[in-house]
């Protein structure tokens, strides 16, 4: 029981880091990033290659930096243009990005599955409540918490974080007040993409790598964002934790329906509270 809850916490943490990236991008650019799952996958594969050639920590850094750079590129070339368009236009365009990234991954890494072991320092198990629990999974929770805290602190206490929050609320007014949306944009999207990539590489030793991992996680990340409310971090946190538990307990108790549960939950939320748990009334 406790182990299930802990597994749920692990899933939830990964989902939250991933979903935070979505929230960052949507909040600032009003782009519904349909390529977010592909970014996650790219981070996992790129990190994997570096980790296997050098070391796992380097792999994590590589994933973060590479995806950050890609995010900046995406913003400058595409998202900036999309930010004034209808949200569904952004979905279509980012769907195109998804296709490009999937092709890239398939070309470079092929279609087979890969597995990666956690670094020696983090392998092994601890005893929790009398049952063994992998250390690496605890690391995932810890790392995610650290990233979330750093993000929250940056947004709350730093000047650039303030600008991001302002621009996310109202881009035109923020621009009038002198916030350089032209600079903030690439930074935020880069960060959002980096979070996706980091979530991917962190998940790699836990969940392994396969060509479908992008689309699987994409749908989940949207479910998390929609349930939480499409621009809210706190909403994403609550719903990621909730979905993590649903996933963990679902696979154990109702394996047939486990994959349906997130959708069921999202449908219920959308029908009774379309703006999500913490979202604003659209």
């Amino acid at each position, binding site marked *: 029981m406790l182990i299930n809850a802990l597994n749920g916490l692990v899933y939830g943490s990964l989902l939250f880091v991933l979903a935070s990236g979505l929230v960052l991008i949507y909040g600032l650019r009003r782009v519904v990033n349909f390529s977010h799952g592909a970014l996650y996958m790219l981070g996992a594969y790129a990190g994997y290659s570096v980790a296997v050639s050098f070391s796992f920590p380097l792999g994590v850094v590589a994933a973060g930096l590479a995806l950050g750079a890609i995010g900046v590129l995406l913003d400058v070339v595409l998202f900036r243009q999309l930010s004034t368009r209808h949200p569904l236009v952004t979905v279509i365009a980012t769907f195109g990005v998804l296709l*490009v990234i999937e*092709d890239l991954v398939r070309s470079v890494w092929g279609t087979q599955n890969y597995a990666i072991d956690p670094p020696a320092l983090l392998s092994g198990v601890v005893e929790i409540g009398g049952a063994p629990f992998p250390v690496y999974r605890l690391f995932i929770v810890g790392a995610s918490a650290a990233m979330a805290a750093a993000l929250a602190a940056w947004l709350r206490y730093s000047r650039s974080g303030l600008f991001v929050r302002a621009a996310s609320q109202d881009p035109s007014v923020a621009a009038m007040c002198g916030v350089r949306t032209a600079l903030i944009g690439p930074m935020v999207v880069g960060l959002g993409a980096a979070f996706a990539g980091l979530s991917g590489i962190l998940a790699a030793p836990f969940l392994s790598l396969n060509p479908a991992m992008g689309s699987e996680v994409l749908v989940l990340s949207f479910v998390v964002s929609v349930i939480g409310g499409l621009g809210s971090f706190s909403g994403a946190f609550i719903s990621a934790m909730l979905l993590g538990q649903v996933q963990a307990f679902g696979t154990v108790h109702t394996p047939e329906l486990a994959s349906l549960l997130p959708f069921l939950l999202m*449908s219920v939320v959308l029908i009774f509270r379309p703006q999500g748990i913490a979202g604003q009334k659209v």
Partner: protein
Amino acid sequence: MAMISTARPPVAGLSQRFSVLIVLVALAALLFGVERFGSRILVSLLAQAIIVSALAFGVGLLIRVSGLVSFGHAAPFGLGAYGTVYALSGAAPLPPEIGLPLVVMFVTLVFFLIGLVISRLEGVAFSMLTLALGQAAFVAATKFRSLTGGGDGVIIDMPRQLYGVHADVLQSPYGMFVVGVALLTLVYFALSIAECTQLGRLAVAIRENEERVRFLGYRTRVLKAGVFAVSASLAALGGVLFALYQGFVSPEILHWSFSGSALIMAILGGTSALWGPVAGAFAFFFLKDGLADVTTHWLAVLGITLILVTIAWPSGISGAVQFLLARVPALFAKGKGR
């Protein structure tokens, strides 16, 4: 909101009826030409394209009339396909000739009911819910082996003939192409007429200002559900044709990526004309086939095409055609030295 292009339907008149004639003649010529000159590969491609274009048509219709984007239209498509399996099987109480239209009607009814529930949503929320719906259908088809054969799929018990047409014809590329063209042409004309009626104008009104329509005494929820149901029935028709042609149905057709492809086709073709999504479907198939011959990276090229279309020319193929056609009178006028 130029992407979600929803031009006013034209008023039916003499020139409309004339263009109907032109369309019919052109189609007949097309069918003849394909039969005489089309290579096997071409015809095979056309057959697949016409089937999927029914799905794209449905997705596009929803965008055009309601301004709503569905990511789950593979669900009615798949339901139509699996329904066909049932209607053709020994367990079905009615002969297939009656069963098949009933399948389409059943799917339409189901999605009308679903539409009643979800039509209170708009925009991204609506789209996400349709995504959920589609995935739920996919998972259900994969898990409930007893009903659907699970991930392995199920083979159709094809009768010797249907509606007087031999099964071999239905399952041949050219045969299916003709059947598909005939059915879709009928549907197209029916819908064009519908758009010119009071109902069509009501749909425009709902899209422009739903609140006022409610204050004018209409139950807009029912009307929106109706539009959703019609778009689902088009998808179901595609599903039926798919099942008949392939002789085999498996859960892949319910995956959201298939819904996504249909959406791409609708956008590529553009929704400012009723026929846009169908053109988009054909363009998609030919593009994909052509690209696959040229490069293994056809997926990436497709992705880039999609990005370019959304950024540079959001009204798609039909938008481009309409744009050009509108310029033609001006060209003639210039020629006359005005």
